[in-house]
């Protein structure tokens, strides 16, 4: 069982508390000149995303959480689980809808996602930063109309709705930034 001492604490470190995996967000060293030292940390629960505060006596040890990030290819869903494959070992793994979360809005079969695994169970799925998706529905843009901030909504093949320029037409392939949910450019097929 791997452990970390408080003097190894830094942001990003994965630790186990009360049976849940956490990532350290912020670590503050607190010590009165003549007294006991403490580490006051902000930690994010990797299952719920909730950030809490916790204090440790300096020098205490905490169990390490076996959390790794791996790149895996999205294969398919059977309606219950979402299956991903390690492109090197061809090993497959199922992720729950909760773990896949918002990534669902953006990913298609074959896309390579970043999975955070805890004891080999997926905690979260991150889509690629940029994806190319086809427009399945958008109203025709009116030539010369520059009102409404110069944009209109478009529904993409995964069901996501993004704001696009007026000249975009149904059937076109678009590059989208999944972090901001914003249109980037048209893509030539």
């Amino acid at each position, binding site marked *: 069982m791997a452990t970390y001492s408080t003097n190894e604490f830094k942001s990003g470190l994965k630790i186990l508390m009360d049976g849940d995996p956490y990532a350290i967000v912020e670590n503050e*060293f607190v010590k009165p*000149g003549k007294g006991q030292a403490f580490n006051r940390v902000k930690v994010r629960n990797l299952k719920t995303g909730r950030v809490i505060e916790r204090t440790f006596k300096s020098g205490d040890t905490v169990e390490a959480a076996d959390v790794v990030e791996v790149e895996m290819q999205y294969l398919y869903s059977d309606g219950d689980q979402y299956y991903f494959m390690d492109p090197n070992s061809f090993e497959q793994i199922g992720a729950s809808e909760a773990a896949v979360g918002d990534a669902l809005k953006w990913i298609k079969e074959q896309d390579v996602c970043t999975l955070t695994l805890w004891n080999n169970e997926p905690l979260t799925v991150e889509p690629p930063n940029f994806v190319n998706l086809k427009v399945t529905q958008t109203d025709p843009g009116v030539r010369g109309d520059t009102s409404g901030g110069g944009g209109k909504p478009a529904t993409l093949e995964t069901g996501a709705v993004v704001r696009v320029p007026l000249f975009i037409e149904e059937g076109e392939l678009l590059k989208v930034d999944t972090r901001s949910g914003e249109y980037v450019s048209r893509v030539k097929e």
Partner: protein
Amino acid sequence: MEPAWRPAARIEQLRQRAELLARVRRFFAERGVWEVDTPQLSATAIADPNIESVAAELAGRRYWLQSSPEAAMKRLLAAGSGSIYQICHAFRGGERGRLHNVEFTLLEWYQVGFDHHALMDEVVDLAAMLLGERPRERMSYREAFLRHAGIDPFALDAEGFAARAAEWDMAVPDLGADIDAWRDLFFSYRVAPALGRGRYSFVDEFPASQAALARLHRDEQGDLVAERFELFIDGIEIANGYHELTDPDEQRQRFRAEAERREIRGEPLPDLDERLLAALAAGLPDCAGVALGLDRLIMLALGAERLDEVMAFPFERA
């Protein structure tokens, strides 16, 4: 990110730091307090179990980098130096953060014939010279707790503190029966951050169990308290001073008690500082002394948020 060979602080900040140091030296020159220079590498180390001294191996023997120049300066006082000051580097293992660096600059001085009250006046004069005037206030450790945490630190036992921590949802570790660790925790979290906001706040009359090298007396409530003070500015601890204990037997007892706590915790056990005890036996003049975190004061004077902004090469770049 700056390349690792570069200083962490801007050169302009370091030049201003030098100017502040020159003013500190003038402050003492005008008061007839002279500058001394004592070893940083020494055969003994402080017994305080909360301070981790850094060991240095030399010709098969273990020496220690000093966590404060206190012992050496008291030997000078006992030898008849009169009032003295020192600006030196000190080392404390494991202490690193926004307000800590393993190697840091201490300003330590002793005024012969002063008690802690007279020395507090001088400490705040020095702070005001660098930071400007602010309202000054003094309160006892008990008063500081009552005012800012609503609890009496002498009336609560370890269980009482544990119950408050749970009630206030503080998410803190179980410190068991260690009453002083509980006091430190509550002081660090609830009291200190509220002190010195727009003013110079002194706290004195610390519990006798946190006396270190200070004299003791009974306060109005009949509790044994130490003639020890700390200065807080903007929620940050800046200085720690004592009306110095001069009784060698009492000092030996305190060293032994600290050594015992180290043994229980399985920490390294430096030899008792017999040279300091011999100096006390020869006669330490009645005096008050204070250690001031000069990097922190400079940080505040230059409007910085972190020690690293006023240090050339903090630990990771050293």
